[in-house]
């Protein structure tokens, strides 16, 4: 557990001893960073004494020193080709947090059409659209890591979908870690105007297995009737630290669907906050953490039903092997007046290793009476009846267990609407189950 002194020192070194991103021509953008620096200095790095971090001890992070990378990447297309998704005609690549235009493939902006561009550059051209949203949804006032991200805010993706626009190709945002001890603070903003549609894939990968830190923040804003599919794959290196945050705001009759998969990182934490801010909004959050060794994967989600007739569905699964530790905290809030909310949540956990550990806390906070809310949580092994059934059909014990474990994880992966990515991940789960 980090003491306050250590924590203070850590933040100090983060904020002061490190190269700062170049200043923006936009005064308000620079001001936002300055405010975030101030806020980050006032906040403390959380310890397990904080309820929100009770099961996730991030003190190993504090003992290491990380530096933002400022130079452009020396990687070429051959180095990163294996991460490409054949369905994605649009791809923005970031290496150690820095935008790599040579590795990216993006459509030219035509007239008033959609924008998919690097944030630090595009923010200037699209300031009037960006300003009302940037740092308004993922507020940094109470979250030290969001504050640090905002303080270092520079490269990242800006996706802007004008009214009624539909981008058919998935938008692949590929974040590659190539250097050890690098600190990346990628920042993404997705603005979907009324009736627009797109699929955004956030994909965190690595070329090396030593320690680094990813501190990513994404904001997604959906106007009336907009639809966003959001796939988030975290396959960071086995010594990496991953701190992720995503804040989603949904307007009337809009629909947000998320599939978040955590496979990598020594310690990972993902906070996903969805605000159903208008009537008839709908969200589906699916998650899978597949971890082994001494990994720790922590997922915190909040579904905030602020208005009537909202619908939310959530299914979060963890497969935990060896001495790994999975944490899930899923809050569903139904605010006063959010009548006819229909919400259900399930947290299912499979413990494979004898010393594996799960801490799960689904929670309901309901302030409206005419609502339908349910949640369930299970922790256990594979169902012995199912194993027996498969064995009675001639499978070996191991094969039966592998198959069932695979099926447990595949249920979430199946919900990824990109075939090549789905197959790749299914392969990963299969390899994992066969290894164990």
């Amino acid at each position, binding site marked *: 557990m980090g003491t306050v002194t250590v924590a203070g020192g850590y933040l100090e070194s983060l904020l002061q001893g490190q190269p700062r991103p170049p200043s923006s021509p936009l005064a308000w953008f620079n001001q936002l960073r300055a405010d975030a620096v101030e806020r980050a200095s006032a906040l403390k790095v959380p310890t397990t004494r904080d309820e929100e971090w009770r099961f996730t001890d991030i003190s190993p992070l504090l003992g290491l020193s990380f530096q933002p990378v400022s130079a452009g990447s020396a990687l070429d297309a051959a180095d990163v080709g294996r991460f490409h998704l054949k369905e994605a005609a649009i791809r923005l690549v970031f290496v150690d947090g820095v935008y790599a235009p040579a590795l990216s493939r993006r459509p030219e902006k035509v007239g008033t059409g959609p924008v998919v561009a690097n944030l630090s550059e595009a923010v200037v051209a699209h300031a009037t659209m960006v300003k009302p949203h940037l740092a308004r949804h993922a507020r940094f006032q109470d979250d030290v890591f969001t504050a640090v991200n905002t303080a270092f805010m520079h490269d990242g993706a800006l996706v802007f979908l004008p009214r009624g626009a539909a981008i058919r190709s998935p938008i692949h945002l590929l974040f590659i870690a190539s250097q050890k001890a690098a600190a990346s603070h990628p920042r993404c903003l997705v603005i979907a105007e009324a009736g627009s549609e797109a699929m955004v894939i956030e994909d965190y990968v690595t070329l090396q297995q030593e320690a680094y830190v990813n501190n990513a923040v994404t904001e997604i804003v959906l106007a009336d009737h907009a639809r966003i599919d959001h796939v988030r794959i975290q396959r960071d290196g086995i010594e990496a630290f991953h701190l992720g945050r995503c804040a989603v705001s949904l307007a009337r009759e809009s629909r947000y669907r998320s599939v978040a998969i955590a496979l990598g990182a020594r310690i990972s934490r993902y906070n996903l906050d969805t605000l159903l801010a208008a009537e008839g909004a709908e969200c589906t959050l699916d998650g899978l953490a597949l971890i082994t060794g001494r990994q720790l994967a922590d997922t915190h989600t909040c579904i905030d039903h602020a208005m009537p007739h909202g619908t939310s569905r959530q299914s979060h699964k963890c497969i935990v092997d060896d001495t790994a530790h999975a944490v899930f905290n899923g809050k569903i809030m139904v605010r006063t007046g959010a009548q006819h909310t229909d919400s259900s949540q399930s947290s299912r956990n499979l413990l494979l*290793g*004898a010393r594996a550990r799960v801490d799960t*806390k689904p929670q309901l906070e*309901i302030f*409206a009476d005419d609502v*339908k809310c*349910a*949640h369930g949580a299970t922790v256990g*092994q594979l169902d012995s009846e199912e194993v027996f059934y498969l064995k009675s059909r001639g499978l070996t014990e191991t094969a039966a267990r592998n198959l069932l474990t695979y099926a447990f994880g595949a249920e979430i992966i199946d919900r990824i609407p990109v075939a090549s990515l789905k197959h790749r991940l299914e392969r990963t789960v299969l390899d994992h189950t066969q290894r164990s």
Partner: protein
Amino acid sequence: MSAVLQNLVNQPYKHGFVTDIESDIAPKGLNEETIRLISAKKNEPEWLLAFRLGAYRKWLGMEEPKWSTVRYPEIDFQAISYYSAPKPRKKLNSMDEVDPELLRTFEKLGVPMHERAALAGVAVDVIFDSVSVATTYKQKLAEVGIIFCSISEAVHMHPDLVRQYLGTVVPVGDNYYAALNSAVFTDGTFCFIPKGVRCPMDLSTYFRINTEESGQFERTLIIAEEGASVSYLEGCTAPRFDTNQLHAAVVELVALNDADIKYSTVQNWYAGDENGVGGIYNFVTKRGLAKGVNSRISWTQVETGSAITWKYPSCVLLGENSVGEFYSVAVTNHHQQADTGTKMVHLGRNTRSTIVSKGISAGHSHNSYRGLVRVAPTAAGARNYSQCDSMLVGDACSANTFPYIQVRNHTAKVEHEASTSKIGEDQLFYFAQRGIGNEEAVSMIINGFCKDVFQQLPMEFAVEATKLLGFKLEGSVG
């Protein structure tokens, strides 16, 4: 519709009267002198005074817990009197020597203090403010070796037993209010069921707070030796005051091999008025240690009273194959706040636990279930099933569910389910369309909702619980 519901849930509090009786009240305030005074008044042995002072010093270094959802103004612990006893306090030889005013009080509350008039098969210990005023059936129970008396008496008559177990299940520094209780507890009930004895009758304690400025800090200790079993019931009421009274009890249960303790509570402390003025702060620590192989501890609670309830009757399942159960109905109305639930700590192999919690919120109240299921690495084969349902009546209240599930053994199996339901226009219209009036409809819905818990209560309590909720039974209980 809402008017009907409001009338039904707004039954006037029937136990709000004050008994006019001369009391011996300690001056307000808390310091080591207060503790020495309490200990001296009770003529306690030195070890117990040391226990109290140790707890007090721990308490001074502790902070009030702030993690729950309950909100209340800061408590001035120096404004409370820590000892209040009806005068004169001489040793009673029979129930006939009890102050007639007290007898009348308890008669009015429906508590049987005369053995001859008592409900068949229930022995009662009666606690009035800080002291035990009477215990019935003591002799009869003694014949089979059962000790059933006030804890003050036990300290003198059975000091070794008390010393052996006191503070072993709830350590003095367990939490803020447990530490406070350990420092200042005044009386409570002591039960000891020796090896192999199945207690021939239900044992019960009736708690009554009477004095406005006094807190109530009782301490209950129940020990069931190998193969013993007991069913224990507890009821609570208090007069109506505009101020808040603090009730910080500690209950410890110990079950040895094959022992079985069933502990039932109907809590009906004064809840404050419809504007949230007055009422009891009920900050209670209850914990059972299922120490022996195949032992079982079962908590059943019906929580209807108190301005604030903060209470998590828990089971530490240490013995192999031991069983923990928690059945709860918590009803809140007006401005009541309840943050209640349980902890099931699985330490032994093949331990099993069941949690059934039903929360009903009405008015402007807040009702939270908070439960912990922890499976330690040693608890191979542990099983838990939890069901936590909430019902909301009206749209100004809230219902929260906070289950904490922590599993460190891969052979464990834990299942938790929660849902919400309501009594609303559509439900009542459906009944009405079948010719069933609103009152009866509400009663049926509530009883149906709580059925799984009411079934766990002993007969007399089930009746009282249902009456308390202000609803008729009509066949759905028992």
